[in-house]
Structure formats: C-alpha cells, structure tokens
C-alpha cells in the first residue's frame, strides 16, 4: 500500500467568471421530446434516468413534442403567458420603486417565471405552497390577490397586510395557499411535508408543494424533508429551483457537480424528475404528474427545475462581481416568456400585436395600482403601521410584560 500521495482539497469552481464565458455543457441537456413519461405509479427507483436527463416539451421550432406535451387549451396557455408577463412587469416596476427608495429591498424572479406560474395552474384550490422569496408568480398568477395589496406589503405602509413586520416580498396569504415566507432558508421545505402529512392524517384531498433553491438544499432541513416525505409517503411536490446561483455561489458548491439535485430524491426513495424550468409546457406537465401521484396516495415527487437567475440575487447584490455580465444571454434554455410566446404564435394562437397590447395593458394596470398603493404611504415617508402594533401577535393575548413595554414606549 502506497502512502505517498498528498491529499488535496477539491473546491468546485464555475467555468465562467467575469471576463470569461461559462461553458454550459455541464447542464447535460436532453433534446425536446426525448425523455420518456412513465405512468404515475412508477417506482421511485425506476426514475433514476429521469433524475439525470431533462424533460423538455418545446423544441427549437417552437412546437410541443413528445410524451410530456400537455393537453392544454390555447386559452390556458394565454393565461399562463399573461401571468408571466405580469410578473415580469411587476418585478421591473418594483425594482424601480426600490431605486426610488419607496421600498427598502426587492427580489425579482426574472427568467424563472414559468416555474411558479405553470405549477400554480397545475394545483387545485386548497392546496398549500410553502414558497421561498422567489415564488411571487404563485400570487401574481391569481386574480384574487389585488396588486395594490402586494405593493402595500412591499412598501411596509399603513395598510400593509402584515403590518410592516417582514421585509418586502415575505408575503403571507393563507387564503391563496401561500405560506408565510421565512427569511431563514430551507425551513419551509420540511414544513410542506408536515402539511401534506396532516392532510393524509385527516383523510383530506389537498396536497402540499414545497419550494427551495439549489443553494438552500445544503441545509439539513432539505434532507430531513426528503426523509420524512419518503417515510410517510407524504402528498407533497418537492420543488428544487436550480437557477445555478445562490448569491455569488455557483450550484456546484451546493453539491450539483457531477450529479443532480433530482438525484438526491431517488437516493432517498422518492420519484424524481429533472425538468427544463424555462419551458412552460414541461413545467405544467411535470407538475401535473407530481400532483396526480400525490393525490393518488403514491407519495412525494421531487422535481429539479433547471433555470437561470437572470437578475441580481436581490437589490443588495451586484452579480457582475462574480459571474460574466452577459451570462444569461448564453444560457441554453432561453427565456420562458419568449419561448411560450413563440409557441403560441406558431400554433396561431397569439401575435406580436396582441403581445404588445397585453404588455401595455399590464404596464398601465401595474402603474395605476402603484399610484393607488402609494396613497397609503411608503417606508420612506414614514406612513407605516403604528409602533403600538409592533407588540401585537407576539402571543395570542398580550401578556403583562408587553403591555408594560408598550406603555414605556409611550404608544
């Protein structure tokens, strides 16, 4: 036995950094339509190939092909496109508001719109999502959440529904199946499993959908979630949004090098898919497949969505410091909005004119909502929820010590 070799620490590095382009061959793409679609009652172990390949529906000619192509009416597709456009315009407007200091902080989902929106369309009323801060699409795809209300949360103003307690984007909407967003990464993932277990315990029909980023899968809560979901065959969709970056950290540092995040699911006994997250049709189809499994007591499904964080991590971040400034333009899976639009145009269900008209209408709608929201104040002008309200909801009933402290503050 030789003892002469010196050990070395391996630290993964992205191929691209400012000044040299990323080699995206590490993504290992499959052609559209090439990946098989097993029946929903497939065994977890039999999905090993699906956890390495990439489910795609839209091909380079904008056609929907292969076994995963969903049977969706053109009307539903137009709704999906409109929701993605709305989300993108909303994000752009809120970034501007942040620069104008009307809101303190913002996080956009640029380039990732298809994932939350197509999945929202695949879920049923009553299902519960446990999102991260980047799933605003779950809310913006609905018509029952007023834009003004979202903006008031972002501006922490007098009618902020969560009373200025949380950073912008940390919405809470039980009535819309949207669990209160935590600033602590990964905690919600295992909670989604618990919600699904509760639904099973009660013999209910609702399912849960948990969300996590590639970076946050390194937290213990991610692995614990997989264990519990597998053990109790929890009715839950376990979404891993692999947008390649976690702030400045490349996905290989979260463990993506030479393997996939979907592969972790298979290792834990969970049926798993790796899917093109910028392909609206593939997202919808895979979400339906997973939802059906959950509803039929077939247990959890883990889906890795391959996408790209096209914008900065947050308004506090400058990605040109750690990745090529034009990286997104080279990302091989393109832009989810452009891809769905071209598909709709190709099937004769959409036109450039209509696209422009909808864009204008959405811009006007969002601009008007912003005006209305600003009438209730912004963090900058100090018209925020009262200082007295800070002491509420710590407990159900305010204990004596908090009453005393509130008095001491003189509010």
């Amino acid at each position, binding site marked *: 036995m030789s003892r002469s070799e010196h050990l*070395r*620490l391996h*630290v993964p*590095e992205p191929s691209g*950094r400012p000044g040299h382009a990323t080699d995206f061959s590490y993504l290992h793409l499959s052609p559209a339509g090439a990946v098989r679609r097993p029946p929903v009652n497939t065994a977890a172990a039999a999905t090993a190939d699906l956890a390495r390949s990439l489910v795609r529906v839209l091909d380079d000619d904008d056609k929907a092909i292969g076994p995963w192509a969903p049977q969706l009416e053109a009307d539903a597709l137009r709704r999906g496109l409109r929701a993605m456009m709305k989300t993108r315009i909303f994000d752009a407007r809120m970034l501007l508001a942040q620069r104008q200091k009307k809101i*303190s*902080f913002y996080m956009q989902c640029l380039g990732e719109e298809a994932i939350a929106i197509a999945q929202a369309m695949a879920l049923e009323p009553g299902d519960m999502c446990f999102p991260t801060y980047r799933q605003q699409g779950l809310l913006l795809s609905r018509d029952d959440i007023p834009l003004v209300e979202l903006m008031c949360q972002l501006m*922490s103003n007098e009618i*902020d529904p969560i*009373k*200025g*307690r*949380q*950073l912008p984007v*940390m919405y809470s909407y039980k009535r819309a199946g949207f669990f209160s967003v*935590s*600033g*602590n*990464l*990964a905690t919600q993932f295992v909670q989604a499993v618990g919600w699904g277990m509760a639904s099973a315990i009660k013999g209910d029909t609702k399912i849960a959908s948990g969300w996590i980023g590639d*970076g*946050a899968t*390194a*937290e*213990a*809560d991610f692995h614990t979630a997989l264990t519990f979901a597998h053990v109790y065959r929890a009715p839950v969709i376990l979404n891993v949004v692999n947008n390649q970056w*976690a*702030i*400045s*950290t490349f996905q290989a*540092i*979260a*463990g993506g090098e030479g393997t996939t995040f979907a592969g972790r699911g298979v290792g834990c006994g969970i049926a798993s898919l790796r899917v093109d997250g910028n392909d609206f049709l593939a997202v919808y189809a895979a979400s339906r497949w997973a939802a059906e499994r959950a509803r039929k007591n077939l247990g959890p499904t883990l889906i890795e969505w391959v996408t790209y964080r096209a914008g900065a991590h947050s308004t*506090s*971040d400058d990605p040109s*410091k*750690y990745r090529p400034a034009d990286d997104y333009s080279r990302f091989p899976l393109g832009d989810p909005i452009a891809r769905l639009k071209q598909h709709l145009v190709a099937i004769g269900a959409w036109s450039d004119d209509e696209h422009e008209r909808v864009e204008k209408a959405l811009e006007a709608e969002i601009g008007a909502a912003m005006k209305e929201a600003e009438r209730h104040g912004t*963090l900058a002008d100090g018209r*925020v*929820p*009262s*200082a007295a*309200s*800070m*002491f509420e909801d*710590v407990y159900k009933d305010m204990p004596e*010590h*908090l009453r005393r*402290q509130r008095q001491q*503050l003189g*509010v």
Partner: protein
Amino acid sequence: MSHASDALRKTPMTMIEALRSAMDVMLARDDNVIVYGQDVGYFGGVFRCTEGLQAKYGNSRVFDAPISEGGIVGTAVGMGAYGLRPVVELQFADYMYPAYDQIVSEAARLRYRSVGDFTAPLTIRMPCGGGIYGGQTHSQSPEALFTHVAGLRTVMPSNPYDAKGLLIASIENDDPVIFLEPKRLYNGPFDGHHDKPLVPWSKHPMGEVPEGYYTVPLESAAVYRAGAQVTVLAYGTMVFVSEAAALESSIDAEIIDLRSLWPLDLDTIVASVKKTGRCVVVHEATRTGGFGGELAALVQEHCFYHLETPIERVTGWDTPYPHAQEWAYFPGPARVAAALRRAMEA
C-alpha cells in the same frame, strides 16, 4: 523602515477593512488558519470582509461553503480536532440556529468531555444587530444564547481598532470564540441618529488601525468615555448610542465598552460602579433573559452597598425585530438618556 514599525504604522480603516486585515495577518502568520463561509471565497463575503483573501491565499485556505450553518460549524469542529484554526463566517447571526447544536453540544464542550484530548479552537464570526431595515432575519442580537453556554467565549467589538485586535486574539485563542460584529458599525460609529449622515470611521480615532499584527486581549473591557456620575455598561452599537445620550442629557456618564461579553472583565465594571454609585445597562437584544440581566446581577452582587439608585436596563422590546417600526424598536439615544436621568434621580 524596520519591519516592526511597518507593522505598527496606522491607516484609516472601516470595521470591514480592519476585520479583513486581521484575517489577512493571521492567514499569513499561521498556515493552520483557514477561512470559509457562504460567499466568502471568490466574492469576498456579502459584507466584503474577506474580499481579496482567496486570491491571496488560494482556495484551499479561503473558500465558499454550502448554505449549511450546521455544516460550516460541524466541519470547523472537525478541522479543529485535526489541529487547524478555522475562522468561519455565518452570513448573519440570525442564521446561526442550524449551527447551534454544533456550537453548544460540540464546540463548547469538546475540551471538557475529552479532558483536553480534543479542542475546538474555532472563531465563528457573524454580523449582528439592527439598524439596516433588515427585518427579523437580518437584525438579531443573540449574544445571550452564547454567554449562557459554558465553554464559549463571546466577543463583540465596537470599532475598527478593537475589531482587528480582538479578532486576532480570538483566532489565537484555544477556545471556541463567538465573534459578533455589529453590522451597523461596519462603516462608521452609528449613534442611533438614523436621520443624520453617518460619520465615517476615517473621522474617528478608533478608525486608525495598525497595518500589522497586534492584539486586544480578551476579557478586557475599555473605558470608552470616562465620567463621574453614572456607569453605563454597553457593547457594540450601544457604545455610541450611549455616548450620544450622555452628551444630549449633559450627564457625565462613564461608558464601559465590555468588548468581551463572557468571560468578562469584572474588575473594570466594579471599579467604575463603586466610583459612580449608579449603573445603566444597555443592549439592543430583547430584554427578558438578555445579557443585561446577568450584568445587573453581577453589579448587584459586587457593588450593592455602593449603589445610590436601582440599576436601569435599556434594551430592545420583547418582540421579534420588526421591519417598518425599526426605530421604535431600536433603543436609541432618547431612551438611554431617559434611563440616565432616572438613574440620577434621588
């Protein structure tokens, strides 16, 4: 110029630059020093404290870690057992909870349970405190969760000079050190007047920092401002808030910057309270079970017969740290001044 005088030459530094300089000095002096954490490698940390260190020392000494605070501290305990001196960064103190088991059950007790066979000479850096509109997950001051644990050292600097000297002392120390960095002080001595421009460290004497190696010893408090009428026990941001309160209330307060929270420099505290006969304890963390309670108990035990008035506590309220109501939550100069006045009554 000789090497020694080079090292002692002072340069203006922000607290960020001072912390970076401390790690730079120690990475150069000791091959066993390793720096890692989320985003600390290529990018240099979200607060830029490790900027340039990976380029200088290579990526097996300065590197990015997966987003797992438990993993970061757990691996640091293992590296410590091997003989390294890991200096790890947790991105915010608010995110230390997944690491708490490794800190409390492992790092803090390793020496004790193995009778010194294994030790955990780690330094765990984490930005703490509010004042940046960070909401409940970027504002917390969890120092009491560390001072309560036997075997940990808990340190919190209030200025660039101390930050560098204390960080070097912490890295050299053979015990696990929790190194809390008040992020509101990274760029200047913030005194709680959020509506006024921040004075940069370059305009403050404690922003003059030697370029080379020096230490500020652990377990030593500093009399930040000498005074005769009342002793203020503070640390981190509250040192400058208390200074503003003393000036604005025209009360001649003696402000003690604890620097090391635990184990601490009791002698300096006791000497001051015996001199002034009055004591105000200030911290940003929530009140109940906060470190201020321990300080009040110590002063009571050691100075009871010298006290003219009850010990006052000024703290954050017992609520989560709110986002929009930040300045109603933050114990600013007005609240500290009111406590100084109460302490002066009778």
